[in-house]
Every structure is written in C-alpha cells, then in structure tokens.
C-alpha cells in the first residue's frame, strides 16, 4: 500500500508560521530600539553633563601644541608640536614594543614548547617550570619587577659597564656604541619588552606543545619507518601539521600582546595609552582621548587578524 502524499500545509499552519515571523520581527525591533534608546540616553546625559561642567568637546584640540615632552621615540617630536603628532609618536612606540615583543615571544615560546618533547628530562622539566611560573603571575607585576630590577641593579650613569667594548649598560639603558647618539634601549622600553615577551612566551609554549601533541603518533612513526632522520621528521612531517592547529590560537596571543602593551603606562614608557592619559589630564577631554585609544587598538586588532588569517590560509590543508 502506497503512503499517501502529505497534504498541503493547512491554513492554520501557514498562519502559525506567519505569526512566528511577526514575533521574530517584533523581538528584533525591540532589541534595536532598546540599544538605540540606551545610546541616546547616554549621549544626551553626557552632553548635558559637559554643558554643566563647562567641558569643551571635539577633536579640534589635536591641532593645538601639546606642550609636554616624550621620553623616547623613533619619530622626531618636541613639546611645541601638536597633539596629533604626540599621539602618532605614542602609536609608533606601541608598535615598536609590540612588534619586538611578538618576534621575541614567538622564538622563545616555540623553543620552550618544543623543549617539552625533549628526550632529556631536565630540559623538559625546565620548560615546564618556566611556563607554570610565568603564566601564573600577573603581567603588570612582572613588568614592575623588571623595571625595578633594571633601575636598581644597572650601574650608575657615570660608570657604565661595557660588554665586548660596544654594548654600554647604565641606568640610562643599554646603548649599542659608545657615542652620544648611539641607539639606546631605555630601561622603560626594556622592562615592557621583557615583561610582554617572557609572559606571552609561556602561553605560546603551551600552544606549540598542544599543537605538536595533536599530530598523531603514527605520522612520526611512519616518517621514521621511511628512514627520515628525526630532525627532518620534525621539519617535514610534524611541524607543517602542527602549524594548522597552532596558528589560530597564536593569533589571539599576538592580539593579547598588543593589547597588553597598554600596561606600559605603569612603568612610564610613552606608548599610546600613556600619551592619551597625559593629554586627557591636560585637556580634560576624556571622551575624545579614550575614543582614540579604543579606535586605534580596534584597528590594530583588525590588522593583525587579517594578516594572521592570510598566514592561516597558507598553513591550512590544501584540498584539491
């Protein structure tokens, strides 16, 4: 006996699905209206508060002279320059410490992560100990400690220590070359860089370890059965497969590192946040300065995501 075809949806069923659509539209309208109302209320109270307190608003202050010095930077800047130049100098400082940090934490983290698979028990133990120690102490505390160590234990300015004749270490920082204007890394920069890269390296190491551990054992065994030496097993078989697993979480660690570079304000390294903080205190334009910080970090996050997505496409499985 053949099964009879199902009847066309009844009028009631059609009405029910129309009701569901109307209900969904109503909920969405409600959500959008609630958010719009909240935004309107915040904006109007903010404007009212600003009027009451006589706070000026607008981004026009960016063209006024900043009037404060910046401790260090790659960009030529002096206190008579405009605020926008100060912000730019801060951004360049953020990028300088961020990019060096990303490179350093990747190198160190990969070594530590691979070290967890060493045949030597002491090497495994040291790598494990490093990861547990550095990821369980707040980054801010680590940065403050490095800053204290650098400012307290570096030799005084008038009797600097020299390594190999051309690396000069003093409370001014580490200079490469003996001349007056030789490139110098300040203690503030070094404290932020050490803090960021040593802290993030612990997380990178865990990601690398998990990535390598996720490659099936059979892959390694098959490769060595083919007669590949262990170094080439790692390079040709294990790492390309591990990379697929490593790249996405590595991206979020890079994003974290860039965002964490904002802690530089605590040791006085003139990054974007610290410049914005000074400008905020001088001009009282809290909304504008904080908006600039947020917009710049959002843009940086987006940029890194785009770049790393491209890397990830290279690492992903190529399906024919």
């Amino acid at each position: 006996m053949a099964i009879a075809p199902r009847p066309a949806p009844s009028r009631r069923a059609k009405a029910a699905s129309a009701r569901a659509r109307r209900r969904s539209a109503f909920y969405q309208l409600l959500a959008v209206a609630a958010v719009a109302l909240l935004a309107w209320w915040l904006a109007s109270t903010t404007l009212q508060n600003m009027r009451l307190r006589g706070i000026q608003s607008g981004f026009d202050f960016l063209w006024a002279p900043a009037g404060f010095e910046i401790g260090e930077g790659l960009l030529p800047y002096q206190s008579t320059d405009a605020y926008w130049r100060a912000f730019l100098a801060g951004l360049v400082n953020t990028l300088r410490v961020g990019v060096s940090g990303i490179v350093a934490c990747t190198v160190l983290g990969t070594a530590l992560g691979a070290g967890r698979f060493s045949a030597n028990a002491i090497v495994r133990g040291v790598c494990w100990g490093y990861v547990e120690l550095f990821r369980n102490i707040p980054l801010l505390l680590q940065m403050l400690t490095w800053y204290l160590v650098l400012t307290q234990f570096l030799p005084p300015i008038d009797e600097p220590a020299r390594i190999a004749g051309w690396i000069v270490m003093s409370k001014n920082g580490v200079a490469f070359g003996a001349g007056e204007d030789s490139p110098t890394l300040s203690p503030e920069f070094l404290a932020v860089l050490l803090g960021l890269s040593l802290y993030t390296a612990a997380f990178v190491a865990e990601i690398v370890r998990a990535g390598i551990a996720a490659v099936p054992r059979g892959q390694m065994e098959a490769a060595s059965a083919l007669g590949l030496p262990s170094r080439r097993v790692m390079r040709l078989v294990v790492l390309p497969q591990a990379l697929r697993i490593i790249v996405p979480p590595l991206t979020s660690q890079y994003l974290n590192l860039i965002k964490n570079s904002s802690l530089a304000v605590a040791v006085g390294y003139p990054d974007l946040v610290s410049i914005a903080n000074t400008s905020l205190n001088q001009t009282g334009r809290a909304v504008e300065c904080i908006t600039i910080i947020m917009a710049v970090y959002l843009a940086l996050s987006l940029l890194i995501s785009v770049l790393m997505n491209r890397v990830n496409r290279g690492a992903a499985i190529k399906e024919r």
Partner: protein
Amino acid sequence: MAAPMSFIDARPPPARRPDARSWLRENLFSSAGSTLATLLFAALLAWAAAVVLGWAVVHAVWVADADECQAARGIGACWGVIAEKGRLILLGRYPADESWRPVTATVLLLGLVVASCNRRLWNSWLALLWPAVSALYLWLMGGGAGLSRVATDLWGGLPLTVMLTVASLALAFPLAIVIALGRRSTMPAVRTLCIAYVELVRGVPLISVLFMASFMFPLFVPPGHSPDVLVRVVIGITLFAAAYMAEIVRGGLQSVPRGQVEAAASIGLTWWQAQRKIVLPQALAAVVPPIVNNFISLFKDTSLVTIVSLYELTGALSLALDSDPNWRPFKAEGYLFIAAIYFVFCFAMSRYSLRLEQRLARSHGR
C-alpha cells in the same frame, strides 16, 4: 644441500618496571647531546639554587629591623619588610582593629566559589546562597547594623582582589549567557548586536575600559548620581569579562548536538524550555574548565585597577612601601611576596581546571 635451519635466540622480555638506572640512561644520558645538556643544565640549576638559597634563606634578615636589613642589602633578602608591612600589603588601609572582617568575608566568598565549581552541589540551594553570602560580604566589609562603617576607599589588598574577581565574574555570567544565546539566534538584528558587542570589547585593552569607568562614567549618568569608583570599576570589568565569557559559553552551546534540541522540540518543549532544561545544563557543564581559566586570567587582570587608584594587592604594596623611606628600598622582597600569593592562587586553580577537564574527557569517553 640447504644450510641447516636454526632459530634465532628469543630476546629477553622487557623489564616489567624500568629501574632507576635504565630511567636515567633513557632520560638523561641517551646521547652525547643529551648528556651535554644534562651536565650544563644541572650545573646552571645548582648554581642558581645556591645563589637563591644564599640570598633568600642563609643571609636573609627575618626580623622587622630596618637597620639590620640595610646592612644585609645586596647579600641577603629582607623578609622583615613582610613582618612589618604584611597587614598593609594584605589588607590595604582597612582599619587595623577590624582586620577580622575582611579576612572572614574573603574566606566566605572563596568557600562559595569553591563550592560553586563542584557540579554535585549545583542545586537551588546554591542559587540562594550566592545573594546571601554577597549580602553578608558587603555587610562585613562595609559595616552598618552593629558594625562600624568602613568607606570603600579604605578597602584594599587581597580581599579587594578576590572581591573584584568574584563580583565581576558572577555578574558577567548571566550577561554572557544572554549574549551567547543572542549570537546563535536566528534573528539577524539580535545576532548582529551581540557580535558587535563581543568583537568591540575583545578588540580593546582592559585599561581603556578602566579609564572609561573612572573618567567617562561620571559623564554618563545624571549629575550627582555617579556611583562610587569601586562600583564603576566592577561594572567596567563585568562588561569586559562578559564578552570573553560569552565566547566560552558559545563554545559550550556549540558542543551540544543538534539532535538534543530537535528531540526537545519533538516532545513539545518551547525554545526557552529547551534551552533551560536541555541545552544549557549540558553546555555549562562542558565550559566549567575554561571558565575557571577565565577566572584565573581575571584574577591576574585585577592588578590593573591600581592604575586607576584602587589599592588591591599590587596597589597596596606600593601604598605600604612608597611612603616609608625606611622600607622603600626593600620593594623587591615585597614584589616577590605578592608574586608568591598570586602564583599559589593561580597555580592551584589551574591544577583544578586540569582535573575537571580530565574528568570531563573521561565521562565523554563513556
């Protein structure tokens, strides 16, 4: 004529349990490189241990005597600074003769958190306990009704660190569930709003959110209604943590098979009933380990509030030592002390999260 066939002698069976010698050979001296690494690292570790022990134990000063500490500077640690300033570092500026209040309140709060991590205790009692303990906490810390009043700007040290973490996480949790459900919703407007919120918040550093809470928030509310800075910071951290937690909860929701929702719908449950009775219990059980990890990172992140002048553990240390020229030189010891506190808390929690994860993996394997 073919050569006579002979058997190869059987190899001896592997040792049932590797003895110490074979372990050492395999793990420390398996090759020339490994032997070299062993010797190098053993020498380095021994040297480091000797230096650290000499400084931290042998030559250390254990009494709270600033002159003696000054004499031992560079040779031995000055643990006397902890003896002298310990209360200030741990409890901040909280009135000295009321110290029992923050201690009791913090122990209560931590006990509640530990209980909440245990799935067997998830019942309606726990839901009642949270507001009760929170109220008790606020009463003990803030005073009133029999206890002397203590203003929030005097709260500090470890109790503030614990309170900021627990309060923000507890408040962020319901918000995170709503956002996670919204992000998986079929309504495009709701989904877009939730995605925008999560991505916006995760793209900016916590510091900018704290600046916002401390400088901008007073502008957001009608004049004269701006809440206390502590409340503002808790709101800021809550909104920040909710975005991260929403992503964790979304991961949990995704791990619940579609068949579960379809089965729920086929026995006539509405969408809300299905979420509440079928999906969320399974999803939340799966996300307890990542939530504990989130708790750890939030616990560390609360150190940032010292930048907006709240004296939690890190801030209380500076508060205790910076103003006292006798003890200021021994800040390194202070940093080590609070680093040890952070480490003990975070390490214990991370072990706990690992154990939960393993148990979860076992129960999935069944």
